């Protein structure tokens, strides 16, 4: 079972985000980390490798600094990495990101492509399905459980109020939700071993794509405006005179907000 995990380097989730004039996040101004959702995909891929054999390859598109994210995944136990980096790719939207990743995947040998359910920066969650579309593969998104049996991949697909059991022959694209597993920490031996693992670098010209298919020129979706989330208003404080009045006030509140 050879798995390629597509990861994205994102600004630290807890960092205050700044925006560039074209409404993109200023990534240079903050600390960047592996998209936390992708860590679940990496862990799931490592577990598949441990139970089924095979290899785990990490694929990312991003600035040269995205190599740090690949390095961390290699320290967790992945075998090799591919970094697609080129100034021409800067500003790519979800669709062209998927297009670029699909062309890089064409150069790799895989049974399964795994991703996190979304990235914590833009949070569109579009890339997994767009990637499956580009690759003409089955798309199994929001998996909370992944199982390989009889040449098929079976997942529990998280939906409101429960889950669907979905299966497909592989190769296929699987995106996982938070909580599908508990991602491991890289060990010191893993960190040392990661230095000896190969990271292949690809540029735009290696992808055999028309010049206007990615980057700013290839964008199909455009961020028109960025608005900070409004400040949370201060909560309402009720000071009832008796326990009975307090219970009544709580019941009124819950009823008014349709909780009861």
């Amino acid at each position: 079972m050879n798995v390629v995990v597509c990861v994205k380097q994102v600004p630290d989730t807890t960092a205050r985000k700044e925006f560039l004039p074209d409404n993109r996040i200023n990534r240079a101004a903050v600390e960047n980390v592996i998209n936390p959702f992708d860590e679940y995909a990496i862990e799931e891929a490592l577990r598949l490798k441990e139970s089924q054999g095979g290899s785990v390859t990490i694929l990312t598109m991003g600035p040269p600094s995205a190599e740090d994210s690949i390095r961390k995944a290699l320290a967790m136990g992945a075998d090799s990495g591919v970094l697609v980096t080129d100034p021409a790719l800067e500003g790519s939207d979800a669709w062209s990101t998927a297009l670029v990743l699909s062309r890089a995947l064409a150069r790799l040998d895989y049974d399964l492509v795994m991703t996190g359910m979304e990235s914590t920066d833009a949070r569109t969650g579009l890339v997994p399905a767009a990637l499956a579309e580009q690759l003409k593969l089955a798309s199994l998104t929001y998996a909370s459980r992944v199982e390989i049996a009889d040449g098929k991949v079976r997942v529990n697909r998280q939906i409101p109020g429960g889950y669907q059991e979905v299966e497909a022959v592989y190769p296929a694209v699987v995106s996982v939700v938070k909580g599908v597993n508990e991602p491991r920490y890289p060990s010191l031996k893993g960190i040392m071993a990661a230095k000896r693992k190969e990271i292949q670098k690809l540029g735009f010209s290696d992808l055999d794509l028309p010049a206007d298919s990615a980057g700013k020129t290839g964008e199909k979706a455009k961020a028109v405006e960025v608005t900070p989330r409004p400040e949370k208003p201060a909560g309402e404080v009720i000071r009832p005179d008796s326990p009975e009045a307090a219970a009544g006030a709580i019941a009124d509140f819950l009823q008014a907000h349709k909780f009861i």
Partner: protein
Amino acid sequence: MNVELSEDQIMIRDAVRDFARSAVQPRAAEIDRSGEFPADLVKQAASLDLLGIVIPEQYGGTGLDHVSFALFIEEIAAVSGALAVILDVHTSVGSEPILDWGTDEQKARWLPRMASGELLGAFALTEPDSGSDAASLQTAAERRGSEYVLNGTKTFITNMGEAGLYIVMARTGGPGARGISAFVVENGTEGLRFGSPMHKMGLNGSPTGEVIFEDVVVPAKHMLGPEGSGFKVAMKALDSGRIGISAQAVGLGRGALDLAVAYAQERVQFGRPIAQFEGLQFMIADMATAVDAARLMTWQAAAACDRGEDFTHLAAMAKLFSTDTAMWVTIDAVQIFGGYGYIKEFPVERFMRDAKATQIYEGTNQIQRIVIARELLRGD
């Protein structure tokens, strides 16, 4: 001159920081409150290979340098002083004497199990009547054929009861430093007993107390180094041990500083965050300056140790400065929190209680001054 961390050291620091923040920090207050030994976190640290950080690869460790070791201890101490001292004692004074003095057979017997975390280490020098004057220790080791029989009591022993292995200094000859030899005593040996854990001001969760020897039979081949060299074994262990304690103090100071910086920007009085008052800004600037200086002194001692240079005075200076810094920085952090700093619902008072121990153990700061002065005045 180069004070930059290597790429490896940065990755190690970041990996330990990640572990410390996500796995240790949420547990730190409860460990302090309950005083229970955090066995699960020690096990998790072992799975990250942290327990064998300075043990060579051939014995199952990672054979890393003392700067990496200092980074590791600082990151743990920045969230939990108790876990930091548990791991520090195991890694430095608990295992380094075997690295430095052990025969191949001794190394092969103990180091792989120490690197994997199966055996936690401890260091037993102090006795009820022998603290700073370590050469006056009275625990006796009497030779009987191919064995030694140990009798006596050690006290203030970190990892007491939880450790699987104790480096024990005992008297095999006449009075004074030259009559002392070092032994490795395995937990489970008949006659080895432990007192109940002491109720400490801080570092709760790290068990401290008496290790009692009643006719404990130790094979002669478990002696570390030649007979009569036990005092030297202990002093050398304490040299590198002080790098660890210094790093622990840097972590405690930094942890409290980070909390104070965040709080000062949130706490509003007189219509603005208290961080906007110059009085507080000056406090924070002094705290940050001292913590940084302490860290650089710790790295300096660690780097000298890794280069194989004499680092006794550098380690003593780092330990003295870092632990005194940790003490006043954590006190000032409590001050910045005001009344909230004095209650246990907020974490800074724990840092203050934990910091006090670092000025006392592995050589009081008065002893550090003697060590530093002796190195300077020895005249060669």
